């Protein structure tokens, strides 16, 4: 049993949201640099250079990469041997609130979505997915998610007979329909299987897989390659102004599903692909646990 207090959780959540909003991942950076060498459109190359320059500026001056600093999404693996002292949910939301206020990030959360739409002024509530796993640590993956790209996400309850080809068609069609709106070049997360809700959650998580890492199952890896190739033949290009770089990567994950169905969820993430990962080991033992 290990004790982790809510203050530590709050601090870690805050740190990770700040990090995610200011610093882009190396994988995205390298992928855009590579795209710059192959992008055929002059306007496209101009856009990619601006994007690279923007990453550099945000990191150097600790500015939000994009003004839409998103809703605060967290994927958490909570070790079953951890005892949390204090209020778990409050701690996470406090961390989000402090990051967004102290870090000069935009607060975009509104209360009731239909009638009031009042800004909560804290960017809370956070959207929290918790998985309880063996062990005595807490792993956090935070994802500030902007809505230009989130709005272009899609779910299809496909027939098993639609097969791999049907899935790839649906992914490509979703990206085509999104056009310039999700700020291409994008990263595409897909989950096949589960229930409608589970597929949607895991599609978002799939979008955070490292660029360059394929699904270990070669059949799914082939679907990823096929989808990416076809997407980059759509011509949408950087910022949707035409070109050969529309997406940087496609990650497809799968989970078991029902005999009668094949849910497919597609989550689109823009080039401002922000996420950060951190681990909490608890009290004094921290130093020793890291090794």
């Amino acid at each position, binding site marked *: 049993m290990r004790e982790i207090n809510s203050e530590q959780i709050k601090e870690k959540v805050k740190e990770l949201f700040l990090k995610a909003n200011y610093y882009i991942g190396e994988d995205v950076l390298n992928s855009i640099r590579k795209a710059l060498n192959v992008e*055929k*459109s*002059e*306007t496209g190359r*101009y*856009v990619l*250079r*601006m*994007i690279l*320059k*923007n990453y550099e*500026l*945000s990191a150097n*001056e*600790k*500015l*939000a*990469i*994009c*003004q*839409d*600093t998103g809703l605060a999404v967290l994927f958490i693996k909570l070790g079953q041997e951890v005892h949390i002292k204090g209020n778990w949910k409050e701690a996470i939301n406090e961390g989000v609130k402090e990051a967004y206020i102290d870090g*000069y*990030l*935009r607060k975009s959360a509104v209360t009731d979505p239909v009638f009031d739409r009042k*800004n909560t002024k804290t960017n809370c509530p956070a959207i929290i997915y918790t998985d309880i796993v063996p062990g005595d640590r807490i792993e956090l993956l935070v994802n500030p998610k902007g809505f*230009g790209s989130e*709005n272009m996400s899609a779910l299809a309850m496909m027939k098993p007979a639609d097969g791999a080809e049907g899935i790839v068609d649906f992914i490509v069609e979703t990206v085509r329909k999104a*056009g*310039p*709106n999700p*700020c291409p070049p994008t990263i595409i997360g897909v989950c096949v299987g589960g229930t409608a809700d589970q597929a949607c959650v895991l599609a978002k998580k799939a979008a955070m897989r490292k660029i360059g890492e394929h699904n270990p199952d070669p059949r799914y890896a082939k679907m990823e390659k096929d989808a990416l190739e076809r997407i980059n*033949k*759509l*011509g*949408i*290009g950087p*910022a*949707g*102004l*035409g*070109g*050969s770089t529309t997406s940087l990567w496609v990650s497809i994950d799968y989970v078991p599903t029902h005999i009668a169905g094949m849910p497919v969820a597609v989550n689109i993430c*823009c*080039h*401002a692909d922000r996420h950060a990962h951190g681990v909490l080991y608890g009290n004094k033992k921290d130093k020793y646990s890291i090794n």
Partner: protein
Amino acid sequence: MHTAYYMEIKKINTPLTDEVVRNLKAGDGVSITGYIYTGRDAAHRRLIALLEEGKELPIEIKNQIIYYVGPAPAKPGYNCGSAGPTTSHRMDTYTPSLLDLGLKGMIGKGLRSKEVIESMIKNNAVYFAAIGGAAALIAKSIKDSQVVAYEELGPEAIHRYYVEYFPAIVCIDARGNNLYESEPPKYAK
């Protein structure tokens, strides 16, 4: 500073003149200097409500540019927080009335409706695309920011920015040439 990124950048100033607008072609890189106004859905809704009541607008629209943006808060010592464009189509229903009043330019990202494009042709106006997500870079060109109306809307209030070399691309010109339509087919296989 932006010439390094693009072959040719046209420098333009606000307020826009009809002649400047006429000479802009879809695909031109531009850098904009002068005052521009900000506005998102909430501010547009209020402006249109005033027009419907026959009242005067709180800002002079003629020959101006509206930038669709809801910036991040400014850090101490900064004029403005990160300020990239938001999706323009949410403004589409309100835009033709403003174009009829002499609005000459809009900066945003994403597609516009047929009605907006028709009204742009009729009124000789231009739609610029700013690079979505290049928000910290764009903020560097914003030298001054003042709230001029609807302060209670926070980041959605109408601000007047003074911009210097604001980077954008002519996306739809006053003849209706539209990069979102003309360019992708050239690269599609």
